């Protein structure tokens, strides 16, 4: 029986659990931080002492934790790339710009358990010798920003933040920084530009990898809210223990946001890869299936940027067999374990962990038009293929939803979508706006062609009627 595994969400929906510090302390809050700050240097194999910070970073590497923001990049590796020899300060920025349509998981932690995030953030800062950190929260989370400000004030008052934290000699200041409604601020280098008071135009990589040239051109770590919470649990359990959760290369737990045509939309926490896409949608412990007499039509498995799956689609996935060797298997998309590796191997991604379910009442042309309208609105405009392409896509889809479509629009959409990604843009937004179009048009092509033909036929009929009337 598939079931939830609540680590990050353990307390936050319990009756009587409140976002204040007292409640957090009653639930063993800041215990992990106390332990971490009490760590002593340990002699290494070569006799040289290993600093507490290095020990903590090692645990994160051991844990196999992958970033929960969308890219699934190894957290330990990200931290290891930080330039520690530059002599410049190292900054940490928490990405709380939750904006990928379909995603609403970070919001739960921010609103209901802010101290869990702070503890993870303080631990991560300590492990990386960070003394100044920011939480970049999307502008629309007005109340969320207030909750975090309150939590920071409480933590400061109790000595968990500020100078000489818990008598350890470690200093850290954390501030909340609000965005103002732009999706592109979720892209980490765009976020840094925004935090510097500029338009959030993503930076060119190389050379501007945040780990080397981040905020104020200093080494910077950008981690998602959920990733920082996971760090707390990595340090509580130990990296090796944490890595036993989930599946190899997809360790730990993960928050999943379920929405769309489903009986029980909501947020769930699972061991990564221990639950399949189909179970997440149909099992009573999760989505509990579709509404009566509806049938599954399509699944967006990782936020609207992800390539769409068609119901009944078969995908070829390489997975370790019983003897450990890789075997190629053909699976129905519903049989895919919900993890980073399987979804990528199946040609899509688990992205931000947001699943949007579409049933047979969905008009795919309208659904895609909705998605493309989003990207056209949110493209930052820096790179021509994305700025122009995202608008052309939205325009073509607009005419297909407003009676002005053409039979060749399906081809036209595919051609534009193919012309945007693949290194032609500075950031991954180019991919993000193309993937839903490429996949939806390819997998539901008949709907798009039929719509265009129908519009053409109506126009021809109207023109002929006009001729006859003359």
């Amino acid at each position, binding site marked *: 029986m598939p079931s939830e595994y609540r680590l990050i969400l353990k307390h936050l929906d319990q009756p009587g659990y409140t976002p204040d510090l007292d409640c957090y302390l009653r639930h063993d809050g800041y215990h992990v931080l106390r332990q971490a700050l009490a760590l002593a240097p340990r002699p290494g194999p070569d006799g040289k002492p290993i600093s507490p910070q290095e020990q903590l970073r090692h645990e994160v590497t051991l844990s196999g934790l992958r970033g929960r923001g969308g890219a699934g990049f190894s957290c330990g590796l990200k931290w290891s790339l930080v330039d520690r020899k530059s002599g410049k300060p190292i900054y940490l920025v928490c990405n709380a710009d939750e904006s990928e349509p379909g995603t609403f998981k970070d919001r739960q932690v921010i609103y209901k358990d802010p101290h869990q995030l702070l503890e993870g953030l303080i631990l991560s800062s300590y492990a990386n010798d960070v003394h100044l950190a920011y939480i970049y929260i999307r*502008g629309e989370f007005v109340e969320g920003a207030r909750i975090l400000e309150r939590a920071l004030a409480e933590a400061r008052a109790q000595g968990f933040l500020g100078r000489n934290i818990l008598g350890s000699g470690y200093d850290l200041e954390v501030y909340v920084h609000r965005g103002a409604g732009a999706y592109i601020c979720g892209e980490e280098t765009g976020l840094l530009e925004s935090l510097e008071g500029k338009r959030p135009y993503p930076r060119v990589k190389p050379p501007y990898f945040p780990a080397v040239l981040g905020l104020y051109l200093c080494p910077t770590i950008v981690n998602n809210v959920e990733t920082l919470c996971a760090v707390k649990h990595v340090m509580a359990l130990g990296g090796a223990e944490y890595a036993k959760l989930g599946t190899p290369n997809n360790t730990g737990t993960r928050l999943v946001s379920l929405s769309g045509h489903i009986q029980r939309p909501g947020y769930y926490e699972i061991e990564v890869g221990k639950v399949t896409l189909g179970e997440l949608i149909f099992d009573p412990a999760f989505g509990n299936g579709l509404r009566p007499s509806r049938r599954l039509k399509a699944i967006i498995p990782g936020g609207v940027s992800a390539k769409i799956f068609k119901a009944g689609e078969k995908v070829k996935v390489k997975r370790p067999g019983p003897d450990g060797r890789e075997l190629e298997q053909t699976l129905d998309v519903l049989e895919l374990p919900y993890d980073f590796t399987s979804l990528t191997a199946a040609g899509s991604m688990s992205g931000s962990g947001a699943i949007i379910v579409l049933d047979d009442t969905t008009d795919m042309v309208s659904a895609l038009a909705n998605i493309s309208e989003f990207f056209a609105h949110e493209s930052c405009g820096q790179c021509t293929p994305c700025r122009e392409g995202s608008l052309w896509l939205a325009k073509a889809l607009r005419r297909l939803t407003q009676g002005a479509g053409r039979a060749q629009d399906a081809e036209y959409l595919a051609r534009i979508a193919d012309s945007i990604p693949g290194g032609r843009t500075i950031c991954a937004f180019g991919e993000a706006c193309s993937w839903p179009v490429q996949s939806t048009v390819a997998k539901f092509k008949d709907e798009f062609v039929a719509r265009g033909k129908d519009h053409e036929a109506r126009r021809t009929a109207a023109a002929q009627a006009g001729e006859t009337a003359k």
Partner: protein
Amino acid sequence: MPVTVPSALEAQIEELIARYPQKRSAAVMVLHALQDHFGCLAPETMEWAAAKLELQPINILELVTFYPMFRQAPVGRFHLKVCRTLSCALAGSHELHRHLCEKLGLDRHAHGPQTTPDGKFTVEFVECLAGCGTAPVLMCNDACHEGVTLAQAEALLAQCEGG
């Protein structure tokens, strides 16, 4: 006419600026504070912000014209932002938007924010508000309302009317 920023607000803004190693970083936070106070960001307000942050006015204008939450014209007392994006759209947010516009006598096809002639309500579509699990969602000023039915939307309007 130069803008008058009350001393309490100026103190708050100075506290915001002190949070960053570089003044310019505070720009978005300062603009939020000014917009919350003045209702919108007029040219003289932007010039004040630029001077305060030791920037050129263009450095502020380029932010105000980029970030969707900033505005150069005032909105109604109750600013209703309805989520337009996919999960909310599947749950009826477009019907919700239409209903609000019809109730308030606004043009639902017009682009951008629409304000009632009495200046009481502004309605606009916005992109995903990260409330997809409780769609459709809308924001009324700073508060997020989830799973909003047409009846609840009407009740909200009535509540605002009374308030």
